């Protein structure tokens, strides 16, 4: 291999030549981190017991564990791990898809205002109600309303130019962020305000089995849809006009991407509040590993996102006796990790 060729390969990703191997390793790591997260906590539970408990409804092995241990696994840790896998991979793939759509490696799923909208929906519901269900439904709906509003403002002459989308996304995002601040300002400082703040900081703590049954399929299906159209994201990242000239129905692709990412993000915020940073950083880590081609980047991003959030959540609930809000940790761990990766890889994009 000549120096020139080696140079070529390096710039297209550290593992660009071994993508199948990398995928297998990442799948193993995903399973590994999930199992590890199920083991660690106030009770240490060994992997054998975990598998027996989870497989018990199918295999009916003899119960060698206490009901407490079963409750800890089935009602506490398992929903949390599944939520972590779904939200981590969902937010990560949203970031990658949006970076392609907006032709800008600095955007994430917040760009069209979905998180601000969902945050406001949660805040206003917390003030008006005590019910978790009301808060979640409100959060989800306001997330969709925010993006709908952004799309409506940006639509001119039966088209939605990228620049208009970004501008109106900023406008709508600011509007809902301001309204969230108003909610905080008027909320009862003794109980309502802390609830709002904790919600906005994010936690997998309130992810229940019920949430996963309802919102899990939404996130899962949207991830699959994005994976299916991943090559089209390459095309649309060349710009509207180029993509059109290549025969792509750009408005269709835009709607599919915006709809799926909005559903994923709104479902994520509904399940565990605002978890920032993943959508921005994980796709970059993916690019360092496999290069910018979305055919490889999207699957890899899904896996890294899942691993990252499950690991960070494990740390969030075990590091101290009180739980650390995960929104803080994703930034606190993600930022230095990202900085190290940029320094070490020295890959320009």
């Amino acid at each position, binding site marked *: 291999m000549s120096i020139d060729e080696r140079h070529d390969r390096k710039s297209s990703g550290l593992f660009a030549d071994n993508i199948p191997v990398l995928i297998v390793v990442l799948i193993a790591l995903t399973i590994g981190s999930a199992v590890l997260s199920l083991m660690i906590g106030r009770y240490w539970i060994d992997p054998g017991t975990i598998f027996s408990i989870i497989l018990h409804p199918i295999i009916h092995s003899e119960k060698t564990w206490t009901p407490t241990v079963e409750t800890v696994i089935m009602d506490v840790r398992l929903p949390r791990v599944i939520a972590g896998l779904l939200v981590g991979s969902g937010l990560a793939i949203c970031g990658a898809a949006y970076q392609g759509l907006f032709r800008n490696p600095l955007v994430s799923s917040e760009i069209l205002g979905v998180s601000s909208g969902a945050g406001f929906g949660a805040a206003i519901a917390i003030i008006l109600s005590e019910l978790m269900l009301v808060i979640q439904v409100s959060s989800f709906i306001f997330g969709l309303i925010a993006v709908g509003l952004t799309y409506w403002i940006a639509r001119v002459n039966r088209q939605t130019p990228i620049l208009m989308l970004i501008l109106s996304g900023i406008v709508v995002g600011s509007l809902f962020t301001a309204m969230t601040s108003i909610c905080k300002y008027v909320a009862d400082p003794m109980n309502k305000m802390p609830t709002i703040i904790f919600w906005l900081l994010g936690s997998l703590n309130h992810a229940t089995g019920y949430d996963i049954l309802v919102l899990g399929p939404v996130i899962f299906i949207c991830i699959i849809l994005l994976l299916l159209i991943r090559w089209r994201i390459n095309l649309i990242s060349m*710009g509207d006009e180029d993509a*059109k000239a290549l*025969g792509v129905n750009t408005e269709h692709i835009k709607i599919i991407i915006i709809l799926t990412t909005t559903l994923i993000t709104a479902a994520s915020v509904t399940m565990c509040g605002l978890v920032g940073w993943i959508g921005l950083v994980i796709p970059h880590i993916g690019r360092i590993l496999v290069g910018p081609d979305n055919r490889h980047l999207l699957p890899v991003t899904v896996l890294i996102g899942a691993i990252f959030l499950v690991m960070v959540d494990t740390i969030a609930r075990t590091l101290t006796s009180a739980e650390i809000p995960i929104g803080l940790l994703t930034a606190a761990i993600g930022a230095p990790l990202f900085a190290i990766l940029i320094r070490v890889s020295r890959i320009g994009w």
Partner: protein
Amino acid sequence: MMESLTATNLSFRYPGSFYDVLSGINVTVKTGEVLTLLGPNGTGKSTLLKCLAGLLSPSTGMVMLNRQDLTIMKPYDRAKMIGFVPQSQVSPFPYLVKDIVIMGRASHLSIMKSPGLEDEKIAHDTLKIVGIDHLAMRPCNQVSGGEWQLVLIARAIAQKPKYLLLDEPTSHLDLGNQMKVLRVIDLLKKEGLTIIIATHFPDHAFIVSDRVAMIRDCIIQKSGTPHEVITEENLHLVYGIPVDVITLSSPDRTICIPQWT
């Protein structure tokens, strides 16, 4: 049936603007010919090209491809017929050259499908045609301006179109690369493609084109063979400065030189 690409009474106005960029344009490209659009900056050469490529919809009048209205054709059907090479702008992501070229296969694949081995082969063959197959594995932010132009041409050819429309393919290229691009255009013409080029170089029209249309003030002022149209009088009319058109005997070429007094 004879293939044809025709604009009839075409006018175009950008949304929100009060002025027509083009008005009452009639133009037909004949199969197998190279048509060059000349005209000063901002006269609507690119706009006309984009209307003919189906990327912009005319405000009035229509563009017909084989007697079908281009604006109501499905994007993928249109892209199988018409390849468009845009004015080069940089890709925000450093995709490999081969991955850029393979994007030309989009109109042949359904929305959920990624390109397969056959598409890879077509992309590779296309890179060979334009003479840059050695760059296949190079990230596209590490190629020169001339090479990038050839990559964009290769991407359009990978669509396997009948028509190739190029928007200022030789602008901001050095002399060597200008000729490289013209050579590729000449080659594609010989392969049977019908080609429309918008350019700022009348000299290049003499080299590759069969017909020239000169645009100014929203309309086609003159059209015909290069020697009929690219005259000192017409160049003066269109560009507003005196230009000498000089025919050299060896090599057998005609060149245009703006006067400097």
